[in-house]
């Protein structure tokens, strides 16, 4: 299969089940909502070392938020509910509560809730109070600039993490341009984040390493600079590879984003698009590139 | 004329333990079979059923100033139990503090025929009698509080014990009381200075006497006057952790005079003072077992709403301080005081669980059922409607274990109850709900079905679920009339108020008059209650 003369390898991206929480962060204006959200989702590229993968999905207009103020929508992905609770407590507590005028709310129905506001409330030292509005409980913690409002519970749902594709290009410049274009297109789609810097990951990763205690290491098979040493199977002329990793609230969101992203990435100078998998043994979700693109 | 035939009779006073017998009734009394013209007698076929004398409640707050304050304070309690009027009965309301008629109906429907109102200050006993008159279908009496009476304390101070005796005789007659009640002797007087008593030798402010003196003096007087019921005692430190010691000390003190210790569950806690009470059931049961002159009623906790009410003003105040909410206090001149606070006993409350255990353990650890009687100190530990449930807890160990498991973990810790295997028999239940209280009250015609007894009896349908069995007797006969038939109340009739009126030296009246001028705001002449101003009544002789 070819798109814009770029070969799409007949392979599949192998993704895993994850847990997702959708968080609406609001503030007096969009600037401060974004500031809080960016910090809360920061250092959230990979569960390997960050505990969660997180990103801002979109900005929300006042009529889209529970308190009628500008906001942003952020997604947090973790491997378990328990980890989600820990991550949200830390991130919302340290990054959102501390941010001027902020508030944050659960942005998703369904799933099983974790108690976040109900625990952060103790920061109020006895002066916290709650409001039960439309069967949702909101905690109000007095702050030096006013009050911090946070919903008692955030729903945690099943999600899909680790959707991906690789852009194999003739040089680094083209490769980056294609990846950037893909990310730009994918960012407009709902329900996904691309947790790595600017949505792009250059390191790739594989499980295992020659070193004891190092559980993951660089994806050597896609490093052109050592392709002969490792015996990689890269097409001729590939000098640079970038990967885009996608976490989505469900399979469909990942599928759609991969489809649009791959199409956007098929620029001149791109030699091949492929995807990472482990032979289908580890991940429960398989996104076959040909299937996605022909749908 | 009425015959109750073929029933399995449990009549402990006459030693009858489940014998198949016929009971014959004429003119409101149990009579020999030969006095009955069977062609005219109405027959209740009790075959396959259980027959017991009518229930006798030795301690219940059903009428008078405090109870009515409870009704007035708690309109929310009215909504818990509402009874519409019927062709034969009045409407009524209230679960823990039911209105007067409803009180009569509910007791009647539970198979009870005699109930003792546990306390009235003589100054307001007239109120109690007015209410008692409005409680149908049961006979009743009222205990008169004397443990903080100024005149008595003055007599003790001045060493004029004969005077005290005459005064007591006059007072119980004037108030048309049935027995002498002592509530926190001296403590209620001290409460009028914001204080209390903690020990038997603490001083009563302004009188220089001690709780010990008050107890022994009244104990001796009670004995000398040959009142049918021994002193009815609510001692010191009600509800406080560690009060078991003072209770046992008081029992030791009163053993020679005889004493009935009411709602002993509230008086039997271990633990450090000020800490959470623990059950001291073993200790108290041992004391009760050892002392021949002592009897108790339990005041068993029934989970759910209650209205606490007692003449023990300081105890009520400290309860109010602990739980908040509504509180009534009423200081009564020269005599007594009291207080109220509504409360809900919760299974998942560690303290309430402990109290529940304490009561049940006392029931199971006191060897002689003739010394321990069933009460919930209605409505302090829960409404009297909880009796059938308590009976089931005593008779059914599996049920008891299940209920135990539902308690708060803290209450269950170190509890004695799981080890107690005893299950009460029907005969024993008949003792603690009928024979025992009647005998201890000195009511010769109550609590048994021998010839000459008042024709008050209950016919139960046997049921494995003892709560169901004792909740809904099939037949209840009061004074020879069928008041409950097939589980339904079919008749409302007045009950009698029983009172004693011991003799005294009329000379004492001059002293009392002087005392009235000094201490009271009403005159001596307007104080005494005359039997003709009461409803149906019966004087019980003192001999």
């Amino acid at each position: 299969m070819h798109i814009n003369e770029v070969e799409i390898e007949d392979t599949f991206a192998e993704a895993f089940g994850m847990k997702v929480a959708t968080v609406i962060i609001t503030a007096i204006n969009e600037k401060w909502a974004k500031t809080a959200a960016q910090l809360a989702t920061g250092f959230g590229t990979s569960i390997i070392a960050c505990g969660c993968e997180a990103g801002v999905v979109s900005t929300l207009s006042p009529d889209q938020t529970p308190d009628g103020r500008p906001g942003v929508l952020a997604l947090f992905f973790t491997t378990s509910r328990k980890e989600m609770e820990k991550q949200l407590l830390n991130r919302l507590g340290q990054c959102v509560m501390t941010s001027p005028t902020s508030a944050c709310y659960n942005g998703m129905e369904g799933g099983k809730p974790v108690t976040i506001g109900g625990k952060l409330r103790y920061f109020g030292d006895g002066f916290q109070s709650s409001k039960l509005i439309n069967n949702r409980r909101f905690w109000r913690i007095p702050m030096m600039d006013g009050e911090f409002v946070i919903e008692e519970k955030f729903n945690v749902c099943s999600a899909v993490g680790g959707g991906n594709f690789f852009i194999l290009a003739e040089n680094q410049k083209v490769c980056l341009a294609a990846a950037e274009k893909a990310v730009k297109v994918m960012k407009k789609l709902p329900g996904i984040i691309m947790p790595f810097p600017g949505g792009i990951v250059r390191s790739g990763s594989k499980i295992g390493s020659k070193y004891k205690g190092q559980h993951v290491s660089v994806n050597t098979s896609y490093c052109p600079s050592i392709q002969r040493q490792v015996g990689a199977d890269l097409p001729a002329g590939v000098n640079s590879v970038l990967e885009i990793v996608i976490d989505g609230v469900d399979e469909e969101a990942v599928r759609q984003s991969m489809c649009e992203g791959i199409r956007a990435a098929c620029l001149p100078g791109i030699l091949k698009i492929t995807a990472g998998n482990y032979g289908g043994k580890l991940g429960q979700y398989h996104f076959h590139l040909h299937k996605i693109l022909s749908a | 004329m009425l015959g109750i035939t073929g029933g399995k009779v449990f009549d402990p006073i006459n030693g009858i333990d489940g014998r198949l017998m016929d009971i014959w009734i004429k003119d409101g009394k149990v009579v020999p079979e030969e006095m009955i013209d069977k062609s005219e007698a109405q027959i209740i076929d009790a075959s396959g059923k259980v027959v017991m004398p009518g229930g006798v409640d030795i301690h219940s707050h059903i009428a008078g100033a405090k109870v009515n304050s409870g009704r007035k304070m708690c309109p929310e309690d009215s909504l818990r139990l509402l009874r519409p009027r019927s062709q034969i009965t009045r409407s009524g309301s209230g679960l823990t503090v039911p209105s007067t008629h409803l009180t009569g109906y509910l007791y009647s429907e539970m198979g009870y025929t005699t109930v003792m109102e546990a306390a009235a200050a003589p100054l307001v006993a007239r109120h109690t009698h007015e209410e008692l008159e409005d409680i149908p279908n049961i006979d009743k009496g009222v205990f008169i509080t004397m443990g903080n009476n100024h005149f008595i304390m003055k007599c003790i101070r001045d060493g004029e014990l004969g005077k005290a005796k005459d005064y007591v005789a006059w007072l119980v007659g004037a108030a048309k009381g049935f027995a002498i009640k002592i509530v926190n002797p001296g403590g209620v007087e001290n409460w009028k200075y914001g204080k209390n008593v903690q020990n038997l030798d603490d001083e009563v402010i302004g009188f220089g006497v001690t709780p010990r003196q008050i107890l022994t003096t009244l104990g001796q007087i009670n004995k000398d006057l040959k009142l049918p019921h021994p002193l009815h005692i609510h001692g010191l430190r009600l509800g406080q952790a560690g009060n078991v010691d003072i209770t046992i000390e008081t029992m030791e003190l009163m053993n020679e005079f005889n004493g009935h210790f009411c709602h002993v569950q509230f008086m039997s806690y271990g633990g450090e003072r000020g800490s959470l009470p623990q059950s001291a059931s073993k200790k108290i049961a041992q004391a009760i077992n050892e002392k021949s002159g002592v009897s108790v009623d339990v005041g068993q906790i029934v989970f759910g709403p209650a209205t606490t009410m007692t003449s023990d003003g300081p105890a009520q105040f400290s309860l109010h301080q602990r739980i908040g909410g509504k509180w009534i206090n009423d200081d009564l001149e020269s005599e007594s005081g009291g207080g109220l606070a509504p409360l809900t006993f919760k299974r998942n409350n560690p303290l309430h669980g402990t109290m529940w255990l304490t009561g049940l353990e006392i029931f199971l650890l006191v060897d002689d059922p003739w010394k321990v009687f069933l009460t919930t100190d209605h409505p302090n530990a829960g409404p009297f409607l909880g009796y059938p449930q308590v009976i089931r807890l005593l008779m059914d160990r599996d049920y008891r274990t299940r209920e135990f498991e539902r308690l708060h973990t803290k209450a269950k810790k170190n509890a004695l109850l799981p080890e107690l295997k005893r299950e009460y028999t029907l005969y024993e239940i008949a003792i603690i709900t009928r024979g025992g209280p009647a005998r201890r009250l000195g009511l010769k015609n109550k609590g048994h079905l021998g010839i000459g007894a008042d024709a008050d009896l209950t016919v139960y349908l046997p049921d494995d679920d003892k709560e169901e069995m004792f909740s809904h007797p099939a037949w209840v006969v009061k004074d020879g009339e069928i008041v409950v038939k097939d589980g339904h109340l079919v008749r409302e009739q007045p009950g009698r108020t029983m009172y004693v009126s011991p003799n005294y030296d009329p000379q004492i009246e001059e002293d009392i008059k002087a005392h009235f001028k000094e201490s009271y705001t009403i005159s001596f002449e307007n104080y005494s209650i005359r039997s003709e101003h009461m409803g149906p009544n019966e004087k019980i002789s003192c001999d």
Partner: protein
Amino acid sequence: MGCVSCVGFNQEIAGIKDDIVLRLKEPTTIPIEAESICPDLFVKRSYREIYDLPVYYGRRKMRLGELFSIDGEKSDFITIEDDVSNVKKIGSKMTSGKIVVHGDVGRHVGASMAGGEIVIRGNAADKAGINMQGGLLWIKGNAGHQTGSALPGENKGVNHGVIIVEGNAGLELGACMRRGIIAVLGDVGDFAGARMIAGSILVFGHLAKRAGAGMKRGSIISFGSSEPLLPTYRYEAIVQPVFIGILLKYLKELGIVFESDMTGKSYERYSGDINALGKGEIFIHVKS
């Protein structure tokens, strides 16, 4: 401040069919107690069975059908035409379904209701929504005294539920409330939120005196004018509470259309009642 029109809401009413229509046959001033006018009881009953439901006309126990004409059966949507200002306890203890009264209604409407919806297009007499446990009570006219308060002797009142009064409300609005939301677009009388335990009361008209007397927790928000608060309330600061935005947003979603956007406005925050727990708060909108 006030409601301009409740467009979405009205459409909703118009869209429902198969309602049971009740109409009082003869106007009377004798009190009628009609706890049986309740969707829970109507939903599975035939015309005949509804006809036979008990009501009290003064002290006379009667059948519903003797006092009301009944059109329809087996529905949990009840429409009452005309004035029923002497009919008490309509919809009390209901748990689901809907009642619309196209006129004034008597005391205790929606008392202890636990779910469902009641709409009064006229005025409601005293004690509307007393001891409410859930659901929505929407009064388009005025409400009487003790709206959303507690039963006699109870120290705990409304627990869950929403009461909206588009007109004015009388004394003791939401007294002893422990959860829930009460919004009054007009004025309210003395002792609003008295002895309140928690919950929110929003007043868009005039807030009379002694608001929040004895309040332990909870919020009273005054968007309009206000009498001076009790001396047992302490002024804290001028704030822009975020939760008010959540409340307003929710009310908008229910169908109230506000004249102007109150979100993000400034309020004086008072805390009290210092004689109770003192954790209650009264917000007074600061006019710019």
